[in-house]
């Protein structure tokens, strides 16, 4: 029993940190976030070269074939760096969906494109009612084979604006339908939905008899979505952990140097105890996030409860750590110039993404109470 990263995993993680510190410091984050679709092609290429975009997939598709624990370690660093762009949408979401539900041919084409860094992708699930989940999906699929067409609209699609293809959840003749749409497909319209997170964007997607490729239907589609929900949430909480850790560090550093009343403010218990509460939340989420990844890797029955435990906790803790961080900084924390609000914006978007705290608590309740 050893609940810590192995040396190799630690190495992977620290080289990711070094890479991101060099290639994506906060000045670069701020530059990228001001672009119309926050994503940097050069940075993406470099990440792909190091295998990040294929981290979870088999070598057959240009992947590294690593597990969720390694992915979580990488995501933690991305969250710490506040990396802008569609990594979450492309790899643990679209990639995992394809990997789980796609046939060999689809994987050879599309999953390889993700692994090689050639394509970015997005997954369109939510609709006007904004609910997370696929039970209520109304966007319809008609025809079949080469004649498959999609009709309807999606909302809150993470990073669709920089995606080269989309995986769309639809309802067709054979029930739940998972279809792949190329960005250039006719009748496809992607419009930004301006949101609070400036480093990662949301879009609405309209399909007007848009040609699509069938990926899966019925139970296979459902199983794939469930698996994606599991892995994407595990990736997201690790990313949130990294952000929280960084907010903690920035705040403790500030508390040590900022002086008022002739003392560093970190000497006042009001500030000090807030810092202690932040550590508690960071360490608690660290336990939950890595266990969720571990449970997935080992196919444990508890995986689902572990993921919902981590996401429900992370949703509140990241925001709360952000609250404390801003409060500790006082006026300085309220400025645009401080990086805290960029993390805070990410915290709010992440809180909502892939099911909020209440949603995940209800999942836990179904698993452990009913």
């Amino acid at each position, binding site marked *: 029993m050893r609940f810590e990263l192995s040396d190799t995993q630690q190495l992977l993680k620290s080289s990711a940190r070094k890479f991101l510190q060099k290639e994506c410091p906060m000045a670069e984050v701020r530059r990228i976030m001001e672009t119309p679709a926050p994503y940097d092609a050069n940075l993406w290429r470099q990440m792909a070269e190091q295998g990040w975009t294929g981290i979870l997939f088999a070598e057959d598709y240009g992947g590294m074939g690593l597990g969720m624990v390694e992915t979580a370690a990488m995501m933690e660093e991305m969250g710490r760096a506040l990396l802008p762009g569609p990594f979450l949408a492309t790899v643990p979401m679209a990639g995992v969906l394809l990997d789980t539900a796609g046939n060999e041919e689809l994987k050879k084409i599309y999953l390889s494109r993700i692994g090689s860094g050639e394509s970015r992708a997005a997954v369109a699930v*939510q609709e006007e*009612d*904004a*609910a997370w989940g696929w039970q*209520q999906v109304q966007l319809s699929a008609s025809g079949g084979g080469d004649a498959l067409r999609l009709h309807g609209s999606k*909302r*809150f699609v993470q990073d669709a604006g920089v995606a080269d293809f989309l995986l769309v959840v639809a309802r067709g003749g054979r029930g739940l339908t998972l279809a792949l749409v190329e960005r250039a497909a006719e009748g496809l319209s992607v419009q*930004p*939905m*301006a*949101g*609070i*997170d400036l480093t990662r964007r*949301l879009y*609405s997607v309209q399909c007007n008899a848009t040609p699509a490729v069938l990926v899966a239907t019925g139970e296979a589609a459902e199983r794939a979505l469930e698996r994606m929900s599991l892995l994407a949430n595990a990736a997201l909480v690790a990313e949130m952990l990294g952000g929280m850790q960084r907010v903690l560090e920035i705040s403790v550093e500030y508390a040590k140097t900022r*002086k*008022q*009343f*002739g*003392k560093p*403010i970190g000497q*006042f*218990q*009001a*500030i000090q105890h807030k810092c202690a509460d932040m550590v508690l939340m960071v360490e608690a989420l660290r336990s939950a996030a890595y266990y969720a990844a571990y449970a997935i890797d080992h196919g444990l029955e508890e995986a689902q409860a572990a993921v919902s435990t981590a996401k429900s906790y992370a949703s509140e803790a990241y*925001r709360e750590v952000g*609250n404390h961080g*801003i*409060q500790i900084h*006082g*006026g300085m*924390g*309220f*400025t*645009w*110039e*401080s990086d*805290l*609000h960029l993390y*805070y*914006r990410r915290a*709010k*978007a992440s*809180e*909502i993404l892939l099911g*909020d705290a*209440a949603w995940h608590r*209800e999942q836990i309740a179904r698993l452990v109470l009913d």
Partner: protein
Amino acid sequence: MMPSLDLTLTAQQQKFREDLRQWLASSGLESWRAEMARKKTLEERFAHSLTWQKNVFEGGWAGVAWPKEYGGRGATLMEQAIFLEEMARAQAPPLANVIGIGLVGPTIIACGTEEQKKRFLPGILSGNEIWCQGFSEPGAGSDLAALTTSARRDGDYFVVNGHKVWTSFGWVADWNAMLVRTDAEAAKHKGLTYLLIDMKSPGVKVRPLRQMTGESEFTEVFFDDVRVPAANVLGDVNDGWRVAISTLMHERNTLGASLHITFARQFRQLVERGRTVMKNGKPALEDPVIRQKLAQCYAEIEIFRLTQMRALTRVDKSGVPGPEGSILKMFWSEYNQRFQQVASELLGPYAQLTEECPDAPDGGQWAYGFLRTRGNTIEAGTSEIQRNIVAQFVLGLPKSY
């Protein structure tokens, strides 16, 4: 039944409110409001609220509780509270010179010379002279008395050098009510002076201070050998701390006066949203968890309103706001943050959409409010400072810092 606590208005107060309502009804408020809604930039909104203020002034409703001889209405503090509530209830545009009317004016009335009152008060009410306030500095936030902006005596002048931050309206103000250090040798609270500075003086430079919402409500103001006539000292030289404390008490007490009306309006707005926003396949208002949280918000708004009334009763009797203002400040600032979180939970993914997004509920005010309210527990004295004040001055516990 014995004569009890009485929450109804006196005949005089009712008359006051009636008069105000009549004037508001005749003021074409509807179009003022509509026009305000169309203004997008800070500058446009300010310009509009300035014409509104001139209108209010001409109607005789600016400076309700100020003495008549300086252009005020000579009303009671209770009537002033009624005024603030009615204006909020009518959703009238804000008065442009809010710092002048709410903070500087009362301080000049309390501590100024007859000449200063005559010179400055009318311009505040008419809006001809816009005011800002220069207290905080980069190194002096919660520890306000640590400020270092200096004013060196030079004959009939003071020469001011330094750097102020978080100055609201700095970009448009004609005058700045400043706290400066006039004696570097004295104990830190004892060497401060309250000085009124013409913002058009040579050596004053203003820079916008961008806040986390992306707006620039505030500015930084730099002073480089700015010459200020000694006649512009308010109160005595080196007695600025006492003067400033009086301002801060006013700030905490008036800031919240009409807030409960704003809170109630936002609450109703959220409740309306809850009829259509879906939660677990039903309108959010039917969700038992959301219901509990909304009910809690309702209760807290009510409690805030009532506690405000109790504070008003006290101020009305004593004439000066006390440290209890800090309790109200803690309450409303932390309530408002809780409320924004409840809104965000009710609205779900829609909560994060900003004004640029056509799908954003209520023009993106919820995403904005979520960020903006973070400032509530920092501005006008952090929650930590308010708790220090309550502990020290309400409970008599020893100073903790």
